[in-house]
């Protein structure tokens, strides 16, 4: 169980020496409890404090790293069943299943180069193919080497122990993931993984044997293990995934405290959706089209966003439609949900406008205001930084209807003939507001520049 701020506070020296960078021991204790600081920053922490904190913070699910170098991916280390309880920590790696059979070296390299080149930017994240799951065939050693050489983490989808051994031996420096075939006797694979020090996937027809198999592999010297859950159909897969996570968090069996591996066949996007939402840590996909990958990358981004640190929009001036210097200027907070709702409604209104997104530390407008993060001054400062005055000739800013209280202060802080107009409370009223209030006013402003 993680310790509370007050429990940690009682373990600290309570000297308020500030060496940790915080003004009081209590502040530091609260940061530790939130997982935002490390105890090492306290030079005077007692051995008892270190022991107590260390025991409390060991994750119930081990971390596993596949690959080496820049593209190496670490998964696991999860601590919760529901993302809102804290957050999901390590987003699942999405691997491309690659069967090199029948390809020339040039064809093979062209595919790998294509996958390596994929970079799609979305909401502050770069989507890419996280790794290559090489199907074992005669051509696989060369393919695995080619993938490794391109920096990809590699999963070996083994067919035979000798074949897998040949591939693993060649790229062992790159920490490939060894995936035995379904129903295989795991002993030989475990011995291979243990000998090479590489991670291993274990599978079994039911959860109890799966947990035992993982425990046995650990006893055989495999340090990094992933579990392949029983999952003949969606219901069983969902059950297995849920039970493994719950069992790991409850620590009912040492064999369950590992991340989960999932293989998804062609045309099975629903299975991948289930995996990404329900705790899978490495997902190998047979499909290679953007129509499959883009929704899955996006889903992963959504689910693994820290819910306690709401996704924030970058502050700045956003164009809705193609606004000009006579278009309305709306201001809102940088809480991404607020942004999505406001921008959607503004777009639906059919009136092109400027949307000024102000840094309100990711809080919604009213909450930000109540916490002092959406004051007239902050909004004014933001508008100046985004040079709003150069973008609209009317120098009128529309503020959310929930905070008319900031209008006077904002108008004063902006100075130089700015007007503040109190907009609607609900985003759904933006269209009527544009029509009934902004329209007449814009005509009025035209005559009173």
């Amino acid at each position, binding site marked *: 169980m993680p310790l509370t701020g007050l429990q940690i506070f009682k373990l600290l020296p309570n000297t308020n020496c500030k060496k940790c960078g915080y003004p009081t021991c209590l502040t530091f204790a609260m940061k530790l409890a939130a997982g935002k600081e490390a105890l090492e920053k306290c030079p005077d922490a007692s051995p008892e404090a270190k022991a107590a904190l260390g025991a409390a913070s060991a994750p119930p699910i081990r971390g596993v790293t596949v690959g080496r170098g820049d593209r190496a991916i670490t998964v696991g280390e999860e601590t919760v069943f529901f993302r*809102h309880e804290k957050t999901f920590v390590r987003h699942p790696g999405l691997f491309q299943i690659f069967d090199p059979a029948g390809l020339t070296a040039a064809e093979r390299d062209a595919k790998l180069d294509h996958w390596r080149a994929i970079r799609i930017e979305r909401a502050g994240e770069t989507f890419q193919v996280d790794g290559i799951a090489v199907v074992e065939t005669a051509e696989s050693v060369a393919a695995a080497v080619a993938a490794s050489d391109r920096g990809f983490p590699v999963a070996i989808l083994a067919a035979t122990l000798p074949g897998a051994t040949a591939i693993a031996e060649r790229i062992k420096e790159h920490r490939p993931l060894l995936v035995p075939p379904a129903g295989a006797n795991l002993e030989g694979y475990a011995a291979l993984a243990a000998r090479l020090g590489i991670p291993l996937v274990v599978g079994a027809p039911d959860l109890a044997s799966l947990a035992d198999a993982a425990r046995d592999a650990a006893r055989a010297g495999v340090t990094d293990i992933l579990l392949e859950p029983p999952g003949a159909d969606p219901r069983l897969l969902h059950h297995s995934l849920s039970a493994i996570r719950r069992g790991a968090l409850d620590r009912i069996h040492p064999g369950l405290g590992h991340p989960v591996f999932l293989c998804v066949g062609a045309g099975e996007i629903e299975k991948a*959706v*289930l995996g990404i939402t329900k705790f899978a840590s490495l997902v190998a996909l047979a499909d290679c089209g*953007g*129509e*499959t990958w883009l929704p899955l990358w996006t889903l992963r981004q959504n689910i693994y966003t820290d819910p306690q640190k709401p996704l924030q929009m970058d502050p700045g001036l956003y164009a809705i439609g193609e606004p000009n210097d006579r278009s309305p200027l709306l201001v809102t907070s940088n809480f991404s*949900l607020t942004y999505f709702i406001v921008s*959607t409604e503004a777009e639906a209104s059919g009136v092109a406008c400027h949307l000024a997104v102000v840094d309100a530390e990711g809080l919604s407008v009213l909450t930000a205001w109540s916490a002092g993060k959406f004051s007239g001054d902050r909004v004014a400062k933001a508008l100046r930084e985004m040079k709003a005055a150069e973008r609209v000739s009317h120098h009128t800013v529309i503020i959310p209807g929930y905070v008319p209280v900031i209008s006077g202060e904002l108008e004063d802080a902006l100075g130089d003939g700015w007007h503040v107009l109190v907009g609607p*409370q609900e985003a759904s009223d933006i269209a009527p507001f544009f029509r009934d209030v902004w329209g007449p006013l814009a005509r009025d402003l035209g005559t009173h520049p």
Partner: protein
Amino acid sequence: MSLDLKPKKWAGALREVTLGAGSRRPVAVGGGNGLPLHTFEAAFPHRPALALEITDVDPVRWVESVRQPWEGVLGRPAEAARRAVADFGADLLLVHLMGTHTDRGNRSPEQAAADVGAVLEAVNVPLIVKGPGAGQKQNTVLARVAEDCRGEGLALHSATNEDYKTLAAVAVAYGHALVGESPIDVNMAKQLNILLADSNVDLNRVLIDPLTGGLGYGLEYSYSVMERIRLAALGGDAMLNCPIVCLVGEEAWKAKEAKVPADKEPLWGSQRERGIHWEVATAMTLIEAGAEVVVLRHPETLDRIRKQLDSWFGSEPSHDREGVVQNSFRATDEHR
């Protein structure tokens, strides 16, 4: 070493809400006493219901790939309804009266009531009737529809925290169910239900619409808010235990990713498949989070989601004595 996986038991359960009455073949939703889809440890008297959205006027903003299966019937609600039920197998329909919006045709309450009446004639599934958006016009339109269609057990969409009194009164007066819509917030969903209960609305006739964030556009907020609503319900909170309805199609097909053609973004793949995947992923994710009614736009999505749900709930719908569609599932069947 055997695994000691104890089934999780909860103090509370979802309310069971029956949609449709009178000439409708009713569909009941909710009633489960566990986490969504956790059929291995809890009982679910009803499977999630799948609805298709039809509109009173041609939805000109719908992207071509989702217009295509409706070709010839867009803006003709009765025919669209027939196709939705007979050809596409919808459990129920959402009739979106978008044409009553003052900026989208400003159709009258009488026209709206006639449209809904025509749909009731054409099919016998329950209807969710969605107005043009909160405000005076919506209240007038839905009040007229509710009056003209009394006894049919419609679900009126939607009452909001700011504007609930008219629809609450109308729903009570004419015996309809009510959808309460709140902006992706556990507390506001609960506040609205309290306000409705205080207005004499029977919460056994209420669905929660927690406002759907589509994939990539706030899905994670909907997901966690719905999980939290479900946990509150299972914990015994009688103000949060109404079944949840999600307007998935509307949000999924609004996404840029569902609209951009393949030649503009070559890495994004086929536009048609991408759009359907967007809707499938949004729907499946939200069902996992606790949606009991999912409103879709593309029939292929409905087909795919139905096949998924069959895995949990079996493929043959059965009818109980009252004629309620009842894909019954009992936890005891599953204990292995």
